[in-house]
């Protein structure tokens, strides 16, 4: 990989300042970014590590629901969010493998917005708010397609605030070699309605399956999904599965997630 200057600020203000340099790139857990840099698909001239910023670490209940610091590793979310938001904790505990979960963070995951990452489905499915150093962004506005988000140049995710649903579950169909989701579905039932977010399936990244949301809003029952159809035309097709296969997985996994949510 190309060389770069490594900086590790201890405050958000210093991180924002460091991100103002030419060719600067934020580094969180690095479990995607470092392999990407080895392939020379990314070659920042300054790498700004966010793992030394205490105010971006940890999980706590607060205004608007569960606040998860952007630099909180998956293993911590899996352990500490369990009593507040079990579906989110379970999702975090199923990402990658144990060593990846020690390093990888929620902020890194949603800033990258890999179309097969788990976290974007929880953020979109919960209707969470992404808090940056500049503003608060609703999940519906944040995810803008494949590896694309509302983040501007130099903008850093500070925390994600999750409203706590009445019921929720995440079910993923593992791609066993990469341990990413071949397809994954996050279902959350709130008093105001149901949200269904799908990762791993669409060429446009994470998306809400509104037909299922409407049907499940009438009755939160796995049967409600059986009569629906999923349009395969924008689904990913690769050696692991055809678009039609993924479209079917969306339906099957949504049913399973509803059943798992209880």
């Amino acid at each position: 990989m190309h060389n770069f200057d490594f900086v590790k600020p201890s405050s958000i203000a210093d991180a924002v300042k460091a991100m103002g340099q030419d060719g600067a790139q934020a580094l969180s857990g690095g479990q995607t970014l470092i392999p990407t840099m080895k392939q020379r698909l990314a070659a920042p001239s300054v790498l700004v590590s966010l793992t030394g910023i205490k105010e971006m670490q940890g999980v706590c209940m607060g205004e608007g629901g569960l606040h998860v610091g952007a630099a909180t590793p998956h293993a911590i979310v899996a352990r500490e969010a369990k009593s507040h938001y079990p579906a989110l904790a379970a999702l975090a505990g199923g990402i990658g493998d144990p060593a990846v979960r020690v390093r990888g963070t929620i902020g890194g995951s949603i800033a990258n917005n890999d179309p097969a990452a788990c976290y974007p489905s929880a953020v979109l499915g919960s209707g969470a708010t992404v808090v940056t150093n500049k503003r608060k962004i609703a999940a519906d506005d944040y995810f803008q397609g494949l590896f694309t988000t509302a983040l501007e140049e130099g903008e850093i995710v500070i925390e994600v605030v999750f409203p706590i649903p009445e019921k929720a579950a995440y079910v993923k169909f593992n791609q066993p070699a990469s341990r990413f989701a071949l397809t994954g579905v996050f279902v959350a039932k709130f008093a105001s309605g149901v949200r269904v977010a799908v990762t791993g399936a669409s060429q446009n990244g994470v998306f809400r399956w509104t037909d299922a949301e409407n049907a499940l809003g009438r009755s939160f029952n796995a049967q409600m999904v059986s009569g629906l159809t999923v349009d395969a035309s924008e689904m990913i097709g690769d050696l692991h599965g055809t678009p039609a296969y993924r479209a079917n997985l969306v339906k099957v996994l949504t049913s399973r997630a509803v059943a798992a949510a209880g």
Partner: protein
Amino acid sequence: MTKVSMTVNGRAVSGDVEGRTLLSSFLREGLGLTGTHVGCDTSQCGACVVHVNGQPVKSCSVFAQDVAGAEVKTIEGMANADGSLSVIQQAFQDHHGLQCGFCTPGMVMSAAALLKENPKPSEQDVRHYLEGNICRCTGYHNIVKAVMAASGQDVSQIAAE
């Protein structure tokens, strides 16, 4: 070059590194601790797992400077003080938990992390925890058996398959 300091296997160490120097490179090339193996170099295979502040990480996917000041433990730090094999290492030998041995350092470090978190894991727990450690020789069965045995559980009923 930047000077980086950390504690490796209980010893204070330091060395000059570039921004891009990985923890695995610092250990292997900087300190000569070549027990940590680099298999895939893409964070998939787990041969490079070491402990950083007591937790397992893939050392090929962490920059040395990002863990400055940390307590690092590698496979070289796993043996007992008198040089005899630790319980986990001995169990790998007793149960034939390795063939070529390339994945073994990572397997042992992951197994040690598992047993710290879950001292009496089920076979399922062991298989699940070792998901990020790939072995191309053994078919995993004897690795799982070794980890179960290292946890003090009776493995006589676990048949070789």
